[in-house]
C-alpha cells in the first residue's frame, strides 16, 4: 500500500500503540468529509437539540425552558403545528403513490423499444430540470385566472367562469400537486425505474413465455418482484422529498390562501427566520427529524416483507 514517507515521519511520533502511520493517511484523505460531517451536520444537530429546550431570539442568550417548546407544539398552543404537520403527511400520502406510479408508467413506456424513445425521454425529463422557483413562477402564470393558459383552455372548452386555481382555498392543494407532479414524474425516479427495468434478465421473460405466461402475468410475476428493490429505494427517497416540500409552495402560494398550503417546513421557516423564535423552531426541527428517521426505519423494517433481493450482491 502507498505510504507517504513524510506523513510517516510526522505521524509516527504521535501514533498511539497499535495504530500505524498509514491508518492516518486514510483518515487524512477522508478528513474533508469527516470534518464537514462534524462541522456542518453533527455539531449543528447537537446545537439544535440544545436550542430546542430553550427560548432564544438571537439578541438575548438562550433561556432554558425544559420541555416547554415541545408541549407548546403538541398541546396545541401553536395553532398551526398540527394542521401543518397533518397537511404535510397527507400531501406525502397522496403524492408519493401518484408520482411513483407515474414514474413507473413512463419508465415502462420508455422501455418498449418504441421509435422516438430518446425524444420522449427528453420531453418527460426536461420539466424535472426546472428549478423549483422557476417552476412555481411558470405555473402561477399558467394558473393565472384571467390571462393564464389553463383558464383560457377551459373557456374555449365552454366553461364560463373557471376558478382561481391558487387563490381558491379548496383548489390550492390539488393545483400544487399537479405542478409538482409535472416536475417530478419524469425525473430521476423515472430514470432509476428505467435502469431497474433494463436490469431484469431477458432469460426470465423468455422462460416465463415458454411457460405460457401472458404480458400481464410476466409483469406481475417477473418484472414486479425484480423491481421491488428499485421501488423501495424510490419510495424512501420520495417520502422524504415530499415531506420536505417548501420552495414550490413558498413561491407559488406563500402558504395561503388562508393557510391551506402551509406546509411543515414553511411553518419552521416562518417560526425561525420571520418570528425569530429560534428555540421553538429548533424543537419543530427535531420533531420533524425524529418523524422522518422513524418513518425511514419503519420502511426499512417493513421492506423485509416485500422487497425481493435476487442475490445479496455487495456493492
Amino acid at each position, binding site marked *: *500500500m*502507498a505510504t507517504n514517507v513524510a506523513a510517516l515521519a510526522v505521524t509516527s511520533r504521535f501514533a498511539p500503540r497499535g495504530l500505524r502511520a498509514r*491508518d492516518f*493517511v*486514510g*483518515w487524512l*484523505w*477522508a478528513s*474533508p*468529509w*469527516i*470534518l*464537514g*460531517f462534524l*462541522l*456542518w*451536520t453533527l455539531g*449543528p*444537530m447537537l446545537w*439544535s437539540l440544545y*436550542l430546542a429546550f430553550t427560548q432564544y431570539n*438571537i439578541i438575548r442568550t438562550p433561556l432554558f425552558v425544559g420541555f416547554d417548546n415541545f408541549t407548546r407544539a403538541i398541546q396545541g398552543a401553536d395553532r398551526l403545528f398540527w394542521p401543518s404537520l397533518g397537511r404535510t403527511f397527507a400531501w406525502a400520502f397522496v403524492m408519493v403513490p401518484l408520482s411513483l406510479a407515474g414514474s413507473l408508467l413512463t419508465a415502462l*413506456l420508455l422501455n418498449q423499444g*418504441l421509435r422516438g424513445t430518446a425524444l420522449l425521454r427528453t*420531453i418527460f425529463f*426536461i420539466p424535472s*430540470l*426546472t*428549478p*423549483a*422557483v*422557476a417552476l412555481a413562477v*411558470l405555473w402561477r*402564470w*399558467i394558473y393565472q385566472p*384571467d*390571462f*393564464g*393558459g389553463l383558464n*383560457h383552455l377551459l*373557456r*374555449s372548452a365552454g366553461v364560463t367562469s373557471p376558478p382561481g386555481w391558487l387563490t381558491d382555498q379548496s383548489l390550492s392543494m390539488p393545483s400544487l400537486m399537479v405542478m409538482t407532479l*409535472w416536475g417530478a414524474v*419524469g425525473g430521476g425516479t423515472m*430514470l432509476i425505474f428505467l435502469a*431497474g427495468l433494463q436490469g431484469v434478465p431477458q432469460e426470465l421473460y423468455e422462460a416465463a413465455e*415458454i411457460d405460457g405466461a401472458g404480458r400481464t402475468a410476466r409483469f406481475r410475476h417477473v418484472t414486479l418482484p425484480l423491481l421491488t428493490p428499485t421501488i423501495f429505494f424510490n419510495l424512501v427517497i420520495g417520502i422524504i422529498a415530499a*415531506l*420536505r416540500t*417548501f*420552495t414550490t409552495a413558498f*413561491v407559488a402560494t406563500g402558504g395561503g390562501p388562508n393557510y391551506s398550503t402551509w406546509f411543515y417546513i414553511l411553518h419552521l*421557516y416562518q417560526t*425561525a*427566520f420571520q418570528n425569530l423564535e429560534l428555540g421553538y423552531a*429548533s424543537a419543530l426541527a427535531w420533531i420533524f*427529524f425524529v418523524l*422522518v428517521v422513524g418513518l425511514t426505519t419503519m420502511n426499512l423494517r417493513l421492506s423485509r416483507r416485500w422487497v425481493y433481493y435476487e442475490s445479496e450482491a*455487495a*456493492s
Partner: protein
Amino acid sequence: MTTFADSSPPATAVMRPSRRTVRTLALYALAIPLAIMFATPFAFSLGSSLKSVSEIHAFPPTFLPAVPQWTNYVAVFSLRGVPFERFYMNSAVITGSALVGTVITAAISAYGFARFRWPGRDFMFMVLLSTLVLPEEVVLIPKFLMFNNVPKALIGKTLIDTYWPLILPSWFGGGAFNVFLLRQFFMQVPREFDEAAVIDGASSWQIFWMIMLPLSRPALATVAIFSFLGHWNDFIHPLIYLNTSDKFPLSLGLRYFQQQPTDAMEPREHLLMAASLLMVAPAIAIYLAAQRYFVRGIVMSGIKG
C-alpha cells in the same frame, strides 16, 4: 424481421404482425398525449415570453404571439429596479465556487474511503450513507447561527449576507452523495494500477492525481453536473442567508422580480417568463450536452447495495 425474434407458437404467427401493430399503436396513443401534457406548460411559457406588452394581457388570451418578440430576452437584462444580469452573475459566482469545492474535496474524501484501511472506516461509511436520508432542515437554524454568532465572536462581524455560508460548506466533502458516488467509482479502478505505481515509487498523492483522477473523468463530470444543478437551483439557503437584493442569485432574484408591484398599464409577465426560461436554459443545455453522464449518475444513486 423482429417478428421472428418472439418465440411464440407457430399457429399464431399469421396473426402476429397485426396484433403487434395494434399494440404499438396503443402505446403511441398513450405516449403522445403524455408527451403533450409534459410539453404544453413549457410551450405556453415560451409563447408568453415572446409576446408583446399589448398581447400579454389581451382578452381573450392567445396561445402564441402574432410576431415573436425575441428582444424580450434582451430586455430582461435592462429592467428598472430588477438587476437581472447581476442575479445571473451572482448565481454563476456562487455555483462555480461551490462546484469547484465539491469536486475537489469529494474526490479527496472518496479516495480515502476507497483505497485505505483505517480504524473506523466502515463505521464512518455507514454514517455517510445514513446522512443521505437526513433532512437538512434540522441543521438550518444552527448553521445560520454558525455564520452569524461564531464569526461575530471571532472576527467581530457576521457572515450573514455574504456568500460564505453558501460556498464554504461545499469545500468539506461536497455532500455525502458525491463522496459515495466517487467512492463507488474509485473502487472499480483495478488495484494493480496503484501497486505498479507504488513499485515505481509513487506517493498516494501522485497515485490520486495521476491515476485516479484521469481515470474517473466520467464520475467527476457527473458530480460536477449534480453540484451545478443543486447550487443553481438552491432557494432555501440564499433565502436564509442573503438580505441585499444586489447579492441575490437567480432563484431569489426571480422571486424578487415576481413580487415587484405590477403596473396595470405595463404588464411584465412576458419578461418574467423570459427570465424563468433563462434560468432553466443552462440546466437544459448541460443535460443535452452530457446526457450519458447524467443518466449514469442518477442510475448509480439507485443501485446502492
